[in-house]
């Protein structure tokens, strides 16, 4: 068996990762767990950027830079999200997302 590695072979695990992220985001109750799911999704998108760049436009680096900036953005987003979570926990003594229903009508 001798199969060349192609783009699809990288995209499928990435897609699977993304779907896991969706599942986690929708089912988990702990806000940090939700954030972890979010990171999974972000990460899978990063992979896609890199893969598309590598397979379709190998001479250029734009996809890679996109991934790079996305990582930086993810770091920023995580920091803020965790600050908010800590604040929310201080108010509700729990990190459960159902306590964050102040956005209700």
């Amino acid at each position: 068996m001798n199969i060349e590695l192609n783009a699809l072979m990288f995209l499928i695990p990435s897609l699977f990762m993304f779907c896991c992220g969706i599942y986690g985001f929708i089912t988990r109750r702990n806000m940090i767990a939700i954030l972890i799911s979010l990171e999974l999704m972000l990460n899978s998108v990063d992979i896609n950027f890199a893969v598309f760049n590598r397979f379709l436009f190998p001479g250029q680096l734009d996809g890679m830079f996109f991934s790079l900036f996305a990582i930086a953005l993810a770091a920023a987003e995580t920091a803020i999200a965790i600050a908010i979570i800590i604040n929310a926990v201080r108010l509700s003594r729990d990190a459960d997302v159902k306590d964050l229903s102040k956005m209700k009508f």
Partner: protein
Amino acid sequence: MESLIPVLILALPLAMFLILGLFGNYMSHKWAGIIGTTSMGVVMALCYFVAYQYFFSGAPEFVDADGNRLQFIVFNQDWLALYEKLVIRIGFLLDPISAMMLVVISTISFMVHLYSNGYMRDHHGVWEKGFQRFYAFLSLFSFSMLGLVVATNIFQMYIFWELVGASSYLLIGFYYTKPSAVSASKKAFIVTRFADLGFLIGILILSFYTGTFNFTDMTSAPVAGMDNVYQVGMAAGSIFQNPATMSFLGGSLLTTALILIFIGGMGKSAMMPLHIWLPDAMEGPTPVSALIHAATMVVAGVYLVARLFPLFMFNEANGGFALEFVTIVGAITAFYAAMVACTQLDIKRVLAFSTISQIAFMMVSLGVSREGYHENLGYMAGMFHLFTHAMFKALLFLGAGALIHAVGSNDYTAMHGLRKYMPITHITFLVGCLAIAGIIPFSGFFSKDEILTACFGNNIVAYVWMSLVAGLTAFYMFRLYYLIFWWKEHKVHEGHHAPHDQPWTMTLPLIILAVVATFAGFIPFGKLVTWNGEPYTIHINWTVASISLTIAVLAIALATIMYKKENPLPAKMKNAFPNLWRWCRNRFYWDELYMFITHKIIFNGICSPIAWFDRHIIDGTMDAFATVTNKASYAIRGLQSGKLQNYVLVYLIGALILGGGTVAIMFLFF
């Protein structure tokens, strides 16, 4: 002439308005009065100087070699340059009537300023609330009125015309806590505004067809070899290239425009049927009535007609009927106002109707003025009467103010028999009555005689009619005089002071005006003010004069019989003509007619349906949008559950539908 003094004449009252209006509350009442009066005195001196220069210096820009008086534009500043053909200017036009008006306005205004120092405080010397404001408004009025009479173009006149209306509004409503004063000021403002609509349309028509706003371009021809100097009359109407072909809405253009402009004058000068505001305007302080609603502002309509008189003449020569219109409106108003004045209780209202009647005299005088008869005697007579009337009517009003101030009521039934208590007021008031009744040698005799002569020369019907009005005038003035000063002994109520003459600030203007009203008739007016500046000598037509004197004396005699001593004759007269008396007393129900038209017809017939449409259709549509939005958001607010994961789920479904749709399309078609 240098332009410094004319500029000062306008700038000083404006500056006083700003100073007293902005900083009046920081100065004492006394100083506000002194400053206002002094500056008005300065303005009066400047006006006298300018008028003296104009009439007597004989400078070439004022009088030509034949002795004709000329128009001279002292300055004419571009103000609004809309485009090269439409430039609105602010300027200073000096000609016989504007010079005369400068004298009239500044004199009366100064007298009123002086008089108000005494009038605007009570018997204990406590100043009226808003005393400084009063002086500020008086200054604003003086500024606007002076600006009006020296206007070089009809638009400037219109601007100051409106300013005069605004200051009149402010002063009528001076006692703004009194509901009647507030409604009177609103009434005056709305009625004159209504008339000014006609004025504005007239201005627009006229200037559209003549291509100019300038009076000098419309009525005069430039004098060769001199800048800014014009001769009135020579070029009258030549600005209309072909008047026969110019028509507006089927009528002659010029007639339409002049009548519309005259409607503006009717509003300001309280001609029927736009007279209803003037009697109510007496709610203002009495000095204001004397200044604005007797002597100066209300003659603005007369002044306007006089200013455009060459155009009226041209219109007459071309078969128009604008002058006839002026005559008829004036004649009807004069008779009507005189009838009403015979029955009023409130002395200021009697004087107000008398004012309406006298202004109508001036209008008739202008209306019957024809070139063929004594070179437009009527024009000169109207201006002469304007001058003398301003003096004696201001005198009567200020006298009435003194009476009201002493007695504390406008109603003559509270007065009666005051002659012993207030001798100075009595004598000066009598002088005013004699002047307005037209007894020789008081000033009113001369001017009224000229008017009647002009009527006589034009139209015998007008002459008889106006003589009748003159008789009525003498009757109602002496009725008023006897009811105030005679009739029966004055009752001094317990605990009240006996009425007495007022302080010198109030009596001095009375005395000065009485002197002027006595001797003003001897001014050789024909040498000073004529329609085209050509001087001529006044000849008293002794036939007319003796008839009118006889009528006046008879009317006074009748008034003496009826009102000198308390007697049942007036009541008998009243019972003999109950309907006539009632109609006169209620001013022929004009106010009720207006109320009926506005409230019943306009409000119910037009305004209510519009209001209904606005409230139910227009607002209803907007309300329906709001209601639908509201209902819809209530229905779908469950989506806003506050549950983060639900949001994500919904978002995901949407994204998947979009993505899936895209993929499906790609799959099917590409």
